[in-house]
């Protein structure tokens, strides 16, 4: 998240400047008291965050150098192994397959969910009755927990489940949606898309609703057609939202665990071809009692996510990450962009 550092600094700089330019009564803060308040207000959050989020990640990097069963301390009860764990992980064909599945899900989620989400958000943005109700209903899969989604879908998809029954009734032959390695990953993709599409639609919808209405009015006066308006106004102005969603989707796909673990279980997932880096980590780490090895897998998973995220931020997100923070500068930029788009649409 390095980009956000510069983003937020700019935002702070902006407000400072605007303050200096206008005369105002100065509140003289007691410096001591200020520092005390900052400490008291922020210490609990920082301590709990460092302790339970950052520290484990650092520990993982340390544990990853040991062959260790998780009892006592790794340097006493374990065996220092250097980079052996990492070599084993990266040369393990099971892990390589898992990485492949992860990246398949990353790409296909973007390709499938992105356009669908934009189209459906466009649809939801039209005038109609009961829009609030519809919006609530399409958010249902996102609110329902992964365990329930997994349990429900595996009952629907199992070989004597509801889906095959319906297919047979209309004269088609069913398939083994879960265990057949040729099909399973597509099944996973469908379940994932079902679960997270609603969230994407709501995000896109929120993005669309912040596009100024005047642009459409102006374009309509100039005789632009519906699709012209969407192509020239909505899509370009939706850019930041789309890029933000894509980022969240990519990270989520790389860390995928719950659904696979629940529907396929730890052993079936590798034979069915749906294993992910995270299921591999749990199976080989905690499952086998090799905490050193499991930690090393976590580090690999983290590094892969980080590299992907950094590349994405560098080339895609960098220009509008500060858009996530509301400040006058980006607001102005956005307006200018909007005006430009409106001119183009004419």
């Amino acid at each position: 998240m390095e980009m956000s550092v510069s983003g937020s600094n700019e935002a702070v700089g902006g407000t400072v400047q605007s303050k200096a330019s206008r005369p105002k009564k100065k509140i003289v803060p007691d410096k001591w008291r200020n520092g005390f308040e900052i400490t008291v207000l922020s210490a609990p959050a920082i301590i709990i965050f460092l302790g339970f989020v950052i520290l484990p990640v650092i520990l993982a990097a340390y544990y990853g150098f040991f062959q260790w069963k998780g009892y006592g301390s790794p340097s006493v009860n374990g065996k220092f192994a250097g980079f052996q764990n990492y070599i084993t992980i990266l040369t393990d064909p099971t892990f390589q397959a898992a990485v492949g599945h992860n990246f398949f899900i990353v790409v296909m989620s973007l390709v499938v969910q992105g356009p669908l989400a934009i189209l459906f958000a466009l649809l939801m943005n039209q005038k109609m009755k009961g829009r609030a109700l519809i919006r609530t209903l399409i958010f249902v899969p996102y609110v329902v927990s992964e365990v329930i989604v997994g349990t429900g879908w595996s009952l629907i998809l199992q070989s004597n489940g509801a889906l095959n029954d319906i297919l047979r009734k209309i004269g088609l032959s069913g398939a083994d949606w879960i265990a057949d390695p040729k099909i399973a990953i597509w099944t996973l993709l469908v379940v994932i898309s079902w679960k997270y599409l609603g969230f994407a639609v709501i995000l896109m919808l929120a993005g669309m609703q912040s596009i100024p209405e005047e642009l459409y009015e102006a374009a309509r006066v100039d005789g632009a057609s519906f699709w012209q308006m969407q192509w020239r106004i909505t899509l370009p102005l939706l850019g930041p939202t789309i890029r933000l969603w894509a980022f969240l989707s990519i990270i989520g796909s790389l860390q995928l665990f719950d659904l696979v673990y629940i529907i396929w279980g730890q052993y079936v997932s590798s034979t069915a071809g749906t294993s992910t880096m995270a299921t591999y980590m749990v199976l080989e780490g905690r499952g086998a009692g090799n905490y050193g090895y499991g930690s090393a897998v976590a580090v690999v998973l983290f590094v892969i996510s980080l590299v992907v995220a950094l590349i994405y931020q560098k080339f895609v997100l960098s220009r509008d990450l500060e858009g996530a923070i509301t400040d006058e500068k980006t607001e102005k930029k956005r307006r200018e962009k909007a005006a430009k788009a409106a001119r183009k649409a004419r």
Partner: protein
Amino acid sequence: MSSATISATKARNGNGSRKNGKNKGKGDFHYSPKTPWGHPIVYFFALILVAVCVLPVLYIIIGGFRSNSQITQSPSGFPNPWEIDNYISVLKAPTFWVEMMNSLIVAVFVMVGTVALGLMVSFVIARYRFKLSGAMYSLFSAGLMFPITVAITPLYLLLRNLGLVNSLPGLILPEIAFALPQTIIILVPFLKAIPDELEEAAALDGCSRLGFFWRMVIPLAMPGVATTGILAFVNSWNNYMLPLFLLNSESKFTLPLGVQMFSSQYAVDTARVLAFTSMSMIPALLFFSVFQKQIVGGLTGAIKG
């Protein structure tokens, strides 16, 4: 205090006007004043989307009203007759209520803890000027890059060393920690948007900064607070990985673990599994449908694409 109240209502109106645009319908499809109800095609596709989203969930709920023999004979059929026994047996099972209580305790503590800690630190980041404020913000936003998956193995060992394995506090503390990044990212813009004049006016009236925080900031940031609180609650309610690692006795199970345990224990009793599953999703669904406006509104405020 009068000037402060005026700006307060202004700030509120500012928030409201953003939402006013919602019902206008942007770039309406085949716009015509003759069809105030909107175009039929729009309804058609909306209906398809809703059906796809809702049908699998309905399958679970309705399936709970069937008997096992009904399900085996016709897996995709409707209940005939409707059986209520499955639901009754779930409601009578003490494990269900124990797990429900555990989930509820954890989710409520996580929600309250996340909102309290998140508000405090967001207030500092948004409204105090000091050297480390930028670093603090990026520290927390970096947290989005550390989902629980990466940390879980050492986190489990850490909690074991702290003696928190198989206990609810062992779930609550890390869940608060992992909920903080998104909370802070949503709350900071909200708190930054509160006009400085308001704080100055409050200061002139002899209100300390903490008093300002308590009396003005919290009420004004309510939409953001609601969003983050609800998200924290629902995420905690649905959390699977941490309880999976941490809890090993059934008396401490939360509902997601309970559902999974139940469905493997009673794998043959599909109808009861369906009933158990649908009972366990009701609280989150209720919670969400009551507060969905805040969630969607808060997300809109946080994105502002």
